């Protein structure tokens, strides 16, 4: 495995995003509206912002990555990369890395809003970065699995839209979990994005009313499952 090949392939894949650096703004409109409603209504806007960070990290690791890989397959660019010294694992890492870079700008914007809103210590800032990376990593494992199963960009888009609704918009990711009745709160932890958000909140020291170990265990279980599935669906030579 060669780092220079991974980085160069990642640059190849991420340049198109860099050409439209403000494209993320349209993706942030709905989450930011939810944040404003939550902030004005309850003053718990910081929790929404953490949810937005988890959501964008998860989405860029999963949906955007799976769509891009499927696009490269349809465009046959993937054949050019596979029939070259770039190993399938290097290509998968490069594509994941490319999608980590595209979330830097929106994550920075959200973090700045968070700092302006309530001020953040250096430790909390480091915890936010760690939470983003964990969310991206779990999302990436899911994205690689999703690409392996679906492979077609249209199918991936339709499944991603549905999943976006089911695991980001409906569950308590963008709004506080305390909005839900207590029994549903516990049930919602099964959703990976909710667990990731709760874990992130714990890491930056926000009290959630849910024990720390619960989201931690669930995130670890999802990570293991998605990684196994992704490895099984790996980009093979055929």
């Amino acid at each position, binding site marked *: 495995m060669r780092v220079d090949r991974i980085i160069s392939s990642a640059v190849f894949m991420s340049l198109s995003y860099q*050409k439209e650096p403000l494209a993320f703004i349209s993706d942030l409109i709905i989450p930011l509206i939810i944040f404003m409603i939550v902030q004005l209504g309850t003053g718990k806007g910081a929790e929404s912002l953490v949810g937005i960070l988890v959501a964008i990290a998860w989405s860029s690791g999963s949906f955007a990555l799976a769509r891009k890989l499927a696009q490269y397959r349809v*465009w*046959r660019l993937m*054949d*050019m990369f596979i*029939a*070259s010294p770039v190993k399938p694992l290097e290509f998968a890492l490069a594509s994941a890395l490319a999608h980590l870079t595209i979330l830097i700008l929106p994550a920075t914007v959200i973090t700045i809003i968070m700092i302006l809103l309530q001020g953040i210590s250096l430790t909390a800032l480091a915890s936010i970065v760690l939470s983003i990376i964990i969310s991206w990593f779990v999302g990436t494992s899911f994205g690689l699995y999703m690409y392996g199963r679906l492979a077609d960009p249209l199918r991936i888009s339709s499944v991603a839209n549905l999943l976006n609704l089911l695991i980001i918009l409906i569950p308590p990711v963008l709004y506080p979990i305390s909005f839900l009745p207590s029994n549903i709160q516990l049930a919602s932890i099964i959703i990976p994005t909710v667990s990731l958000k709760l874990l992130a909140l714990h890491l930056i020291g926000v009290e959630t009313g849910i024990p720390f170990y619960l989201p931690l265990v669930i995130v670890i279980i999802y990570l293991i499952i998605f990684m196994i599935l992704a490895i099984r669906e790996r980009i093979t030579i055929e």
Partner: protein
Amino acid sequence: MNYILTKDVVKIYRGNVVALNEVSFTIDKLGIIGLVGPNGAGKTTLIKILTTLTRPTRGKAEVLEYDVINDYEKIRRRISLVPQDASPELYLTPYEHVYWYLRSRGLSRGDAEKLTKDVLEKLGLWDHRNKVCAKLSGGMRQRVLIASALAVPADIYFLDEPTVGLDPLARRDVWNVLRDVSRGSLIFLTTHYMEEAEALSDLLIMINRGRIIEIGSPKELIRKVPYKYKIALDKKIDLIKSSFKTVDTEKEKIIYVENENDLPDLLDYLLSQKIDFSLKTTTLEDLFIMKVRESESR
């Protein structure tokens, strides 16, 4: 050295679709190898096997004396590919596309810069190097892909129908670059254009329904055409008495004439019947059509 060797290669896809059927040939000289065949003949499958993108169901295939299944990583290091119907990354410029593709293959910054400039100049893309591919014509986008593949210092270049969609002038530019590249490497290209295969290839492989139907240099193959002349006329015209070999193509009926002594009578007859026709000498395309028809009638 055997640059490419296949022995009884069979490829069967799901649903029992036989894409290749006991394909055997050896390439032991550098140059340009043309693989021609109708749609669905097995050209792309053969390229995919040789570029290690798919495995043969049976038989042996070697590239640069490495087995395509066991030594695929060694092969991938030394080949370059333009896939069929490929598209470049639309929001990259031609320069970025070629440069970063080279870097991703492990080339140094200096080498990548030099090779990118060289290939873009040769393929007439230098003046467009800073426009994103989305703003280029279809032909130029195709040239960006060809440039990305040909800029790579490789031992074998596989090009699957690389000139589809190019205008005649652009096609000539690509031919010139291919001839240039083939001096020190092997180029294995598939094409629909017999004129292109004839003009470029040092060795031609004709394939139909997964089987090789003819192989040889263009000079050798042209000698195998059993007729000197051909008369093309409207497909609907039915000649009442014809002892000549006729072949129906999609557009026209072709009458083959072996020697010129037979021509006057036939031409007189066509003129007397006021039938529009054209008289030409036979080419490799005629051998190809005959061989395809022969293989299909078996």
